[in-house]
């Protein structure tokens, strides 16, 4: 498993930290937290491409909590050159992470698909948009994601 701690442990405390609660099953609110994450990053002048990538990761992760978990917490930590999203949910966990990371693999119900989600692109898309991505999951307990995105990277 890749670690993202190298950048975090040596350095100064984050410039900004925000924590958000995400309620599982509340389909109407899916994405509200990610909208806030995006606004916070925009307001402190983070680069637009990085803001977009963080917002995409945040949104995918938030939707996963809403669709699958009871609740979750999303923490945004902003440093000078990068930002970290730490997402932890109380949910069913993922049995086979390798399978879940495959594009198109989905366990979504028809109701989830009606929302426009559940195409099996969530986790692969988070990986694609992050510079360092760590996923830990325990069936029956929950899933934890750590996503690091650098402020200056070529657009993907």
């Amino acid at each position: 498993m890749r670690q993202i701690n190298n950048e975090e442990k040596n350095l100064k405390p984050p410039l900004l930290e925000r924590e958000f609660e995400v309620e599982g099953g509340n389909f109407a609110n899916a994405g509200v937290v990610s909208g806030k994450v995006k606004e916070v990053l925009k307001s402190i002048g983070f680069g637009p491409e990085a803001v977009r990538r963080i917002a995409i990761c945040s949104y995918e992760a938030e939707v996963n909590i809403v669709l699958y978990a009871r609740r979750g917490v999303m923490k945004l930590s902003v440093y000078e050159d990068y930002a970290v999203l730490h997402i932890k949910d109380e949910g069913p966990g993922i049995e086979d992470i390798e399978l879940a990371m495959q594009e198109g693999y989905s366990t979504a119900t028809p109701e989830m698909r009606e929302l426009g989600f559940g195409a099996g692109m969530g986790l692969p898309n988070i990986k694609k948009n992050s510079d360092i991505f760590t996923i830990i999951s325990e069936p029956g307990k929950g899933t934890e994601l750590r996503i690091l995105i650098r402020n200056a990277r070529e657009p993907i």
Partner: protein
Amino acid sequence: MQFMKLEEIRRILNAEVIAGKDLMDKEIEYACGSDLMSDVLAFAKPGALVLTGLTNVQSVRTAYIVDIKAIVYVRGKQPEEDAIKLAIEKGIPLLSTSLRMFEACGKLYKAGLRGIGEVEEKVAANK
């Protein structure tokens, strides 16, 4: 690079403007059509126009997250109330056309608007 003003898109699709009447001079470079917000999140490029049949608030939330410039709802669909509210707040114009997805996309393509995939190919070719 070819740009198309939203006003021109509105005219081609004979669309009704639901939000952002004052934003019709925005320029659109490329478009995509999808009812799946998962796909929009995975493949859309910033500044794109999205044609969709999905009318819930997630259509606008997704647009805001990936910097979509405007949304066209097809088959005469009307976005839900909270979607309109959010679009106004975020400055994302919403249009509705009675054309079906294939016809709406076809008309815009014929008029010169390109797809996201083609723009990517062009960028790759120029590298």
